[in-house]
């Protein structure tokens, strides 16, 4: 489908670019108000302990405001509100007498300067009742003899017992798995383990809480969801939502790191309420790592296939290491299954998923919410099966993948819809040519110190978590669009731009719908009290869900503009006779009648509506998407392995993506570049390892030892090709789908399949550090040293 657009699909500069290059854009970290106090958090020096008493007398004597668990409502909560209440597991306390990971907040102080706050924090004395050995391995944690990290937690409004440290579980069966495996000619079974990655978004999390005259709270914070932040603070402190206003502040990257209300937000609220003064808490980088990293995934996957390359059965055992507290691992058990099921037609499926507590930093979503991990495992196994069967891996994928017309599990068992756009064949076949797939050779033919290999990885992500049926996941959005008195528009939404250009995409969609230049549309400042509810800018839903909502608002506004124009013009028969467009001579948007000289500027219409008291032309839309279509991605990667050092270098990348209609190709490319590089880190370097004795992140938890790729580590621009499939998603705004997560998901698989093609070795534990490669080469008898 080929549609000619005015603005969509064009490379356009972002509206905040000027503020960003001049350094004028203010992030939460930059905010200050007069008289504000600086908050510091007192953290547990042990990973797992019982506190007897917290002595704050010295800190109070210094003049600091201090809060301990005794000052704060002891209500368990889950920092991420995305599931409906009945399936939301709550085990976190704002401050706790029972720390369950090293660095968990136990008290907090506020003082007039960072230095005083720091001194006061160091004066808080914690007396411990009992100190336990940290449990860091989930397989250890589920043993009946292991101490219980949590005893009772809440599920919805009910208390439940935690058995064997299992935080949540999800099982699923479809068809007859045993028979499926009996029918198989080939069965491959592997276990996989990932690293515990950290988001490393450039802006550390921060919050500023201002107590307004009259006691109302204004909250500025690094968040992907202002509304859920407000709801959570309202619930925790029993303050009506109307007395809390959460402001949307530009955010310095996120990748899921602020998908929940971060721990520092309720802590700052507690301090501000007690101090009756504004309080700001800004994390150091080391503290930021303590306020969530990713989950650790342990998979055991078994796949059966017939000689003709048709799959017969799949078994998937998923053990999630969630860390010390739940930040929605239950829906992650569902999405892991969803990602798995929606990859290929397995026919018969058995899934057993458990989420297990350990004494580590709580895990939260990190770009892909399990999809990069699941797709790495699946795409590895599919390659292995292809090799066993002697079928080209690309043919095997084309034969079995879940595509157009088939049922897609967007985000778990309760979020399903039918796939209506599918660029997979185009991307697999085009990419294959560009990378020169047929010349890749077999690993056994490759000799010498430097060996090159080509790999493929295919995957997808959803565009949001919408669907025709209201399931366990909340997903809807809203926006306001109004015509100003001079013909410009204000666009008001609670959605956040993490950097990917989401709100700019909305502006282009509005402009396209109205036929007016994007410059006329202003992205208004937003807060919870001025915007309709939006669940969160997550799940790659910004463009697809938020964009469609904006388009619908523009559609209403357009209708109203035309109606007003008719009132002014008088003799036009109906709104259909009118067009809106940009007049190059007048340099503004006009309403006109084709073939006549009737022409009205938008400014004239707006001004007339104002001057004649016709009221504001505007729209309020609350929108639920009834689908969460997959954006497919296909990565072809060429790497070079130095078999002497175990170091791997990217040589060429072909990143193919099916985003439906690309709103801004620059931003599409940017997501793929960033997604690939993040995958490179996931594949080779990124992990937070824990000291088995203390439970501290090794290397003192400093980013000196959390290595993300630098410019010197990435492919040169000339060797990075992006291809955008020519598809059109009928349910999306102008055919568009989501991208942020799809951009990364299957890249790790492609990278490691390329490593296999180079040296004939597969790795099942991430990150694949040089020592692992050398060890494996040695075992294979191919180490020249």
């Amino acid at each position: 489908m080929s549609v000619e657009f005015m603005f969509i699909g064009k490379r356009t500069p972002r509206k905040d670019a000027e503020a960003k290059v001049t350094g004028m854009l203010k992030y939460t970290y930059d905010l200050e108000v007069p008289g504000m106090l600086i908050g510091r958090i007192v953290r547990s020096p042990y990973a797992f302990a019982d506190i007897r008493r917290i002595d704050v007398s010295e800190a109070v004597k210094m003049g600091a405001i201090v809060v301990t668990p005794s000052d704060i409502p002891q209500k368990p909560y889950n920092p991420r509100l995305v599931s409906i209440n009945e399936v939301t597991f709550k085990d976190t306390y704002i401050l706790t007498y029972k720390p369950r990971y090293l660095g968990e907040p136990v008290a907090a102080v506020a003082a007039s300067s960072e230095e005083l706050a720091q001194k006061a924090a160091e004066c808080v004395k914690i007396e411990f009742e009992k100190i336990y050995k940290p449990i860091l391995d989930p397989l250890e944690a589920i043993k009946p003899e292991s101490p219980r990290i949590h005893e009772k937690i809440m599920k919805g409004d009910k208390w439940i017992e935690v058995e064997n440290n299992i935080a949540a579980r999800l099982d699923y069966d479809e068809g007859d798995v045993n028979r499926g495996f009996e029918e198989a000619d080939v069965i491959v079974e592997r276990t996989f383990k990932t690293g515990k990655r950290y988001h490393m978004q450039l802006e550390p999390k921060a919050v500023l809480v201002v107590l307004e005259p009259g006691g109302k709270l204004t909250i500025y914070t690094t968040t992907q969801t202002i509304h859920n932040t407000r709801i959570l603070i309202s619930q925790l402190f029993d303050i009506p939502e109307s007395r809390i206003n959460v402001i949307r502040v530009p955010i310095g990257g996120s990748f899921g790191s602020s998908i929940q209300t971060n721990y520092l937000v309720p802590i700052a609220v507690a301090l501000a309420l007690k101090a009756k003064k504004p309080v700001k808490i800004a994390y150091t980088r080391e503290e930021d790592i303590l306020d969530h990293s990713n989950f650790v995934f342990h998979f055991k996957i078994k796949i059966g296939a017939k000689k003709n390359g048709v799959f017969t059965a799949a078994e998937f055992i998923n053990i999630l290491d969630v860390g010390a507290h739940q930040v929605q691992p239950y829906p992650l058990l569902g999405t892991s299954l969803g990602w798995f099921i929606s990859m290929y037609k397995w026919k018969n499926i058995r899934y057993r998923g458990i989420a297990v507590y350990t004494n580590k930093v709580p895990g939260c979503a990190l770009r892909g919410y399990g999809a990069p991990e699941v797709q790495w495992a699946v795409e590895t196994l599919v390659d292995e099966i292809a090799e066993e069967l002697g079928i080209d891996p690309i043919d095997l994928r084309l034969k079995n993948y879940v595509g157009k017309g088939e049922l897609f599990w967007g985000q778990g068992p309760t979020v399903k819809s039918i796939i209506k756009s599918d660029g997979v064949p185009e991307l697999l076949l085009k990419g294959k040519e560009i990378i020169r797939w047929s010349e890749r050779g077999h690993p056994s033919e490759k000799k010498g110190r430097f060996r090159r290999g080509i790999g493929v990885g295919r995957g997808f992500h959803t565009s949001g978590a919408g669907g025709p049926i209201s399931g366990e996941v909340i997903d809807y959005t809203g926006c306001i669009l109004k015509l100003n008195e001079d013909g410009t528009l204000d666009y008001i939404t609670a959605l956040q731009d993490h950097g990917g250009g989401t709100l700019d995409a909305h502006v282009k969609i509005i402009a396209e719908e109205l036929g007016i230049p994007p410059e006329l549309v202003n992205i208004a400042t937003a807060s919870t009290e001025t915007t309709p509810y939006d669940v969160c800018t997550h799940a790659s839903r910004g463009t697809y869900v938020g964009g469609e909502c904006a388009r619908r608002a523009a559609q209403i506004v357009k209708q109203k503009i035309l109606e007003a124009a008719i009132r002014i013009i008088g003799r036009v028969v109906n709104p259909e006779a009118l067009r809106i467009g940009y007049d190059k001579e007048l340099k503004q948007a006009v309403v006109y009648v084709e073939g006549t000289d009737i022409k009205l500027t938008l400014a004239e219409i707006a001004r007339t509506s104002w001057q004649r008291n016709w009221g504001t032309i505007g729209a309020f839309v609350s929108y639920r998407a009834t689908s969460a279509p997959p954006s497919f991605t296909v990565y072809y990667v060429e790497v070079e392995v130095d078999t002497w050092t175990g170091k791997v270098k990217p040589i060429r990348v072909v990143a193919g993506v099916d985003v439906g209609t690309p709103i801004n190709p620059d931003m599409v490319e940017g997501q793929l570049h960033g997604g690939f590089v993040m995958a490179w880190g996931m594949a080779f370097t990124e992990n937070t390892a824990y000291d088995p004795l203390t439970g501290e992140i090794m290397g003192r938890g400093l980013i000196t030892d959390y290595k993300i790729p630098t410019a010197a580590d990435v492919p040169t621009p000339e060797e990075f090709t992006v291809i955008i499939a020519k598809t059109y998603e009928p349910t999306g705004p102008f055919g568009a789908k989501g991208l942020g997560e799809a951009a990364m998901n299957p890249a790790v698989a492609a990278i490691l399949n390329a490593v296999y093609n180079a040296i004939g070795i597969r790795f099942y534990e991430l990150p694949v550090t040089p020592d692992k490669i050398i060890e494996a080469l040695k075992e294979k008898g191919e180490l020249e040293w």
Partner: protein
Amino acid sequence: MVIEIPLVNITARNTHIIPFEFEYYEPRSLEEALELLAKFKGEAKILAGGTDLLVKMKTRIIEPKVIVNIKRIQGLRYIIEENEHIRIGALTTLRDIEKSTIVEKNLPALHDAVKVMGSIQIRNMATLVGNLCNASPAADTAPPLLVYNARVVAMSTRGKRFIPLEEFFKGPGITALEPDEMLVEVIVKKNNKGSSAFEKVSRVVVDLAIASAAVYAEISSDGVIEDSRVAVGSVAPKPIRTRILEERIKGLRLGSEELKKAIYEIDREISPITDVRSTAEYRRHIVKVLVWNAIERVYRRIRGECV
């Protein structure tokens, strides 16, 4: 058995600020600086580039009572070629060394090392002498200077002494400096018979070394090692010279199986550990590859190739 679980005072680490107080001095002359060091003995820390010191202070690894900023002392930032010697002053930055044609021409291994040390920002700030005084087993400037048989000049109010660099490193973070001494200069004797090279492997390009190696060698035109000096980093509690290895590779031909075998002798001289950056086994392996690579590169340099 009861295992004592150590306390980790994570609340004390606030890298936004330096929360503890210290006395600060900004001497204008070397004499003044040395007097301060004599007065405060071990309580004082010298601040030059500050890239290591400030990180350690922010993370509370050290809390010095006195800081002596030597940046205002004139005449300590130089790279001088003087007859047979090259002298590098205490305030010479890594970036100065990187840009120096004297270093590039005469001390190529040192040039290799500074080029990959931290970001450009860090290289603009950090000093060579600071990197040595930090005495990290992973200090990248140490292996090259060890193969150049560099000497360092330590001064105090008691006088001046020359310390061979090999004797300067005592252990992780420990040097031969007395508490009242300051390292004022590094002296390297030029040796233009052979050439030198430095190699390292790290997790990402800009990073601390997992392991490193520097080689100075004299190699005949047909590729036989006539003489060599080899030093390695991150495979022992301090950067070390590997003399057994040097002895064994003498007379061997580049690219030969004998050379490879001889390089294995390095196992007797190193004692790598497993840490957050890598494993002992990998270090044991990779250091041999790095030595091999460095020798190859030296040979290509001797043959006039630009590598």
